[in-house]
C-alpha cells in the first residue's frame, strides 16, 4: 500500500540531511511541570552509512562485516 502523501517536506529534508551528515552537540533537560528532572548531554553524528564511511567513521564495523561476508562467500564456494 502506498502512503497517502507522496511528498513530505520533512522527509525530504531528513533525506538530504542524512546524505550530507549531521553532527549535533546538545544539552537536553527534560522537565515535568517546570521541574527539571533529567539531563542529557549529547554528541551525535548521524548520516548515511556511505557518508559515514566516506568520513572514516565506523570503519571498524565495516571491516568486520566485510570480513564476515568474505568468509561466508568462501564457505559457499567451498560447498
Amino acid at each position: 500500500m502506498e502512503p497517502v502523501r507522496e511528498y513530505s517536506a520533512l522527509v525530504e529534508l531528513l533525506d538530504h540531511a542524512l546524505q550530507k551528515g549531521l553532527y549535533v552537540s546538545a544539552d537536553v533537560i527534560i522537565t515535568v511541570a517546570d521541574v527539571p528532572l533529567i539531563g542529557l548531554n549529547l554528541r551525535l553524528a548521524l548520516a548515511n552509512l556511505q557518508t559515514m564511511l566516506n568520513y572514516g567513521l565506523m570503519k571498524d564495523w565495516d571491516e568486520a562485516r566485510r570480513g564476515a561476508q568474505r568468509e561466508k562467500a568462501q564457505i559457499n564456494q567451498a560447498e
Partner: protein
Amino acid sequence: MPIKIEEDKLKEGLLGLVVALVEIIAEVLKLQAIRRMEEGLSPESIERLGQNIFDIFEVIEQIKKDQGLAESVNAIRENLDCVIDDFVNTLVNPEEWVKHAE
C-alpha cells in the same frame, strides 16, 4: 519547544505522535533504501529490502486503522511540513530574512 497534551485526547495525541514519528522514520528509510539500490545492491537484497519496507508500511496502516489515528497522524505531519517549509523558505530567500527581522 513545549509539547502540549490535551487530557481527553491523550491517547489520540500521544499515540498519534508516536505513529507519526514512526511513519516519518519509515519513509526516510525507504528513501535511503532507494539510494542504496541505485548505488548497487544484489537483486536478492533489493527484493528483501523492498518486501520488508512494504510490510512496515502495511503494519503502520493497520495500527492507524485500528486505533483511529489516521486523522491525527495526518494533522501532525502536515503541521511539521508547514514548519519545515517556512524554515527552508526563510533560509533560501534573503528577502524573507528582512521580513522576519521587522
